[in-house]
């Protein structure tokens, strides 16, 4: 599975370093966080320096239904002339959907991206909704409109889905039955599963959400689509085991897990602590926790080159390189060449994490709320449920 940088503001030289060191395979740019001209020049520069890198732009059109909110922070999205504020009723008209797609494709065409991601709206509640109907229409129309542009770069349709929608199995299965059978399909899908808030980690680490996100990857990949999982972070290697082609994560928590909060002013809070992604915990721990735990439980350390950045505590800008490196390494460990074999390795990785947490507990070492093992059970159950439903 490939790993991409999910780009937000404060890009600095992180992505360049990640590409240079082979920790990531590409990058997904965000219109909100970069002025259009700056983005164009960054993309051109990246293409020149790293010709093998995948470069994508997430259209972020999914905020259009919320753009009327007085507190919304659209950043630079409004630089894009194709971006308008819409009401659902307007997007129920195919002609409007076609116009949005057409305008977006025209505007993205001059950028030197390697593939084009088509815009879509956010499915905010359920697959049995007007939003889901509109979203399916965007998916169906994307290829048709794209072909008119003569652009030959691969086309990805986007699916931006709230985690609640993934909790209704019947509706979810009807939805995937629909989108896996298209008359005029795109080459792949850019999938974002959204949490209710950027702080609600347990939202995404939920059995049904994990199982269905994996099902989405499996069903789309079986049908020949490439699946790029935006904001997938630590789940990326698991989604890769289910058939996903790529995952993405970035340097801020709002680039690791998606929530519409990303488009609203931050509620403030303290500066985040530098964390270390431990493969054997399938989680990040703070620098001080890592230092304390490693004495008793040495296998929390990955023994990868970027571990040396953590002696002493690194600047925050170095943290993401360690994350990418750990995820890349974890992905290589989990990939067995076939889905069943990879899932077996996923199970082993979760069992190892459970065991490592037990060892930490046995030394009565207390971890910060975010560093604890709350993700282990949903991950285990999600994997079990996925295997059962996928008949694997």
């Amino acid at each position, binding site marked *: 599975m490939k790993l991409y940088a999910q780009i937000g503001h404060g890009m600095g030289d992180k992505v360049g370093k990640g590409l240079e060191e082979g920790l990531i395979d590409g990058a997904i740019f965000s219109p909100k966080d970069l002025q259009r001209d700056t983005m164009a020049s960054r993309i051109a520069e990246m293409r020149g320096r790293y010709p093998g890198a995948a470069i994508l732009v997430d259209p972020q059109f999914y905020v259009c239904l919320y753009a009327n909110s007085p507190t919304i922070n659209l950043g630079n999205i409004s630089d894009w002339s194709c971006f308008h504020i819409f009401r659902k009723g307007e997007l129920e008209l195919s002609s409007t959907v076609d116009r949005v797609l057409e305008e977006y494709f025209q505007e993205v065409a001059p950028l030197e991206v390697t593939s084009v991601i088509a815009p879509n709206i956010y499915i905010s509640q359920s697959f049995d909704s007007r939003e889901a109907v509109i979203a399916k229409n965007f998916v169906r129309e994307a290829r048709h409109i794209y072909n008119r542009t003569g652009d030959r770069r691969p086309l990805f349709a986007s699916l931006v889905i709230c985690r609640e929608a993934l909790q209704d199995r019947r509706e979810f*299965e*009807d939805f*995937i*039955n629909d989108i*896996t*059978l298209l008359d005029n399909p795109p080459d792949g899908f850019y999938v974002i599963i959204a949490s209710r808030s950027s702080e609600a980690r347990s939202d995404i680490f939920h059995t049904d959400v994990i199982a269905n996100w994996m099902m989405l990857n*499996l*069903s789309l990949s*079986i*049908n*020949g689509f490439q699946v790029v999982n935006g904001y997938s972070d630590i789940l990326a290697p698991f989604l890769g085991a289910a058939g996903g082609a790529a995952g993405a994560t970035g340097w801020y928590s709002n680039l690791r897990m998606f929530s519409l909060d990303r488009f609203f002013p931050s509620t403030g809070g303290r500066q985040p602590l530098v964390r270390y992604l431990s493969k054997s915990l399938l989680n990040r721990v703070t620098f001080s926790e890592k230092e304390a735990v490693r004495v008793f439980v040495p296998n929390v350390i990955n023994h990868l080159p970027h571990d040396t950045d953590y002696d002493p505590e690194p600047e925050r800008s170095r943290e993401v390189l360690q994350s990418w490196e750990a995820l890349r390494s974890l992905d290589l460990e989990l990939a067995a060449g*076939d889905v069943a074999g990879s899932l077996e390795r996923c199970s082993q990785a979760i069992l190892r994490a459970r065991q490592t947490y037990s060892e930490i507990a046995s030394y009565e070492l207390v971890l910060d709320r975010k560093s604890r093992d709350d993700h282990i059970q949903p991950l285990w159950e999600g994997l079990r449920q996925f295997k059962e*439903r*996928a*008949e694997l």
Partner: protein
Amino acid sequence: MRDKPDISQVQQAAPEARSLEEIGSGGFKVVYRARVGGRLEALKLVEIPSDENDPTIRDENLRRIVRELNILSKCTSPYLVRLGSIPPRACRISTTEYVLYSEEYISGDSVRNLMSANHRPAIVELAGLAVCVLMAVRELAGMKVIHRDIKPDNIMKTDDPTRPYVLLDLGIAFQIGGTGITRDSARIPGTLYYIAPEMLESGFRQNLDYRADLYTVGLTLYEYATGSNPFAHRGDPQFTTLYRIKTLKPEPLCDLRSELPPQFCSLIDQLMKKLPALRPANFEQLIKKMEGYR
């Protein structure tokens, strides 16, 4: 078929056909070998279900049969049976209404007969069958038609190298039978064993697509390869079979035929997944993969 008409009555209804000989029958149809204009053809008599409380059902069914036969007449795939010289027409024998038409007569053995003779197909043969049937299903899917009755009985192995396997019987009888499945258990056709799991969902007609045929292609290949249907066991109640179709994960094909290429086996297993979205549905990719084993 219950209350099969006497062959002399069929002869009267189809005076252009000669030397009728019954060669098969199903829940709603009888098939005769007949000579039509000096050529051997398969004469088919399909019962039109009707409802005395709702006369529109009969008309709707008749229109549907004729429409599907018209579509079949436009198909060009050599792997699909062609229509014969008797175009579809309604006829009444005693008190029952039928549609009568003819198809080309395909000589050879059905896959069912080969199975009955304990024939154990090698990979080349299985892949050849898969390619022919997938090409036939692709053509039907292109016309928005679902066969609905792909099974070993409906695939003929011929001596003609240009069409080594031919798919018969557009499933018209089954489609008609489908209306009765939930209402009249006595009318469940023999094809019950080859029903795709999604067809057991309420309201399946709205969501049915050609992946139901891909499921039965997979099931037919699995059964041909192993010699047994993973869901249907002799003497089991129908409910048990339906329950298995809906819930049982068949034993992986490679466990039963370990000498077959593992990737071929897993492709067949994948075609039999309960959820249509989990079946590979891209014909080009599927056919290309199967071609690789021929």
